[in-house]
């Protein structure tokens, strides 16, 4: 019997550009981005979904790319921090993080930005968080206003060793107000 294939050709559309890669099945989306496509924006902090530094958007939803097997996401649309700015024009979230000093060393920042982008869309679509009052569980979900408490709860999957949390929340508030 032939040994089973342990590699596959995987297609990912990253920041609008299509890539076809021959990958060992063990390759995560994070490693595909960093090691195979040279996109080092998404960071590897823990490699176990415990820190959020690797957060990217996959098919529009934020997720930890360190636990996604690339082969399982063949054909996916991926947005990384490199895809946020339009040319030289920063994304409003990026501008707000600069304005508010929403970082110190910057290691967690790409993950914070992608997470915030996904989070704002989730709240806009009416998705609740643990701190959303149950009374607001209407049958047709209205956008959830992003109070600082909501932002903190929804961003809890992104750790910052420098403790820039206060300014990160302020930056996100600036964009959502």
């Amino acid at each position: 019997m032939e040994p089973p294939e342990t590699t596959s050709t995987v297609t990912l559309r990253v920041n609008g550009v299509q890539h076809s890669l021959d990958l060992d099945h063990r390759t995560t989306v994070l490693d595909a981005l960093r090691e195979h496509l040279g996109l080092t924006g998404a960071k590897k902090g823990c490699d176990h979904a415990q820190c959020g530094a690797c957060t990217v958007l996959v098919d529009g939803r934020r997720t930890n790319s360190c636990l996604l097997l690339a082969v399982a996401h063949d054909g996916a649309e991926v947005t990384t921090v490199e895809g946020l700015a339009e040319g030289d024009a920063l994304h409003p979230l990026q501008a707000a993080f600069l304005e508010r000093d929403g970082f110190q060393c910057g290691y967690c920042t790409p993950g914070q930005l992608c997470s915030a982008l996904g989070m704002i869309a989730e709240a806009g679509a009416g998705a609740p968080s643990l701190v959303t009052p149950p009374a607001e569980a209407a049958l047709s979900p209205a956008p959830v206003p992003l109070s600082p408490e909501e932002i903190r709860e929804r961003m809890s999957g992104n750790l910052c060793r420098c403790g820039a949390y206060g300014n990160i929340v302020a930056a996100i508030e600036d964009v959502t107000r």
Partner: protein
Amino acid sequence: MRAFAYERAGGVDEAIAAVAASPGGMFLGGGTNLVDLMKLGVASPGLLVDIGRLPLTEVRETPDGGLHIGANVRNSDLAAHPAVRSRYPALSQAVLAGASGQIRNTATTGGNLLQRTRCLYFQDVAKPCNKREPGSGCPAREGVHRDLAVLGHSPMCVATHPSDMAVALAALDAVVHLRGPGGERTVPLCDFHRLPGDEPQRDTVIEPAELVVAVGLPAPPAGRSAYRKARDRASYAFALASVAAVLDVRAGVVEEVRLAFGGLAHKPWRARVAEEALRGAPATEESFARAAEAELAAAEPLRENGFKVRLARNLAVRMLGDLAAPAGEGSAS
């Protein structure tokens, strides 16, 4: 991580057949637990059968007024579903109390039920562990066990089941719909997870190559329901103890109650002793405390986790009190 073959299943039966035919085969859901364990060397499948694209993504109301939740419904979609939020708030809250926004976007209903314990020894292949390697011993019993079980543990294993969602499902009398090489069956959620006994390697009653296809909920019970979780930080941490409850009070008397604890045992702990004590009792803090204490009298805490017994008692008393308070006078979240 060991190299592995990968197949994307085209259908439920194809997925089951592929795993059944391969001794080292495993289903891949969202992968948020399995890929983690593969990186740690705790799981080393030779074949992953990806079920993530199977169309088990429906949340639909059933003719009996209940809810059918497909195994591939993502945790975030389940928590946000209008029928879940409005009719089963404890379930929505339990899912939202778990993990992070990113993880919930990826994790599936089936995978959540089947996630493995967070016991540190289980996750460290350099250590013995009866669950990972039957017969090798349980270092947690004498070692680091602050987060582990106080109820229903065995000399072989003192692990807890980490799912928040499953605790709410236990209180809501959910069932698990399974399909395997031998056909279909339905198991009450409360019988799906096991106590460790002398087979701690088995977390649940699932058989090899059996697939969770859906979770079923009966019509929502009368009364109010909620989930509350105590943990070491305000968010993004596993439960030290948690409680899901449904309470129906009429004229100051407990008409019906369902209570389940999380973080205390190898499975969601349905508190039937407490429920029995409460039915027909006055809905007062005294009754709630007496009932919780009766349930927790069976606790056998380890050296470092005795605090969990008091914590669970207080969580239950506080939650039942909130649920008993007429709307507006207490928060049921």
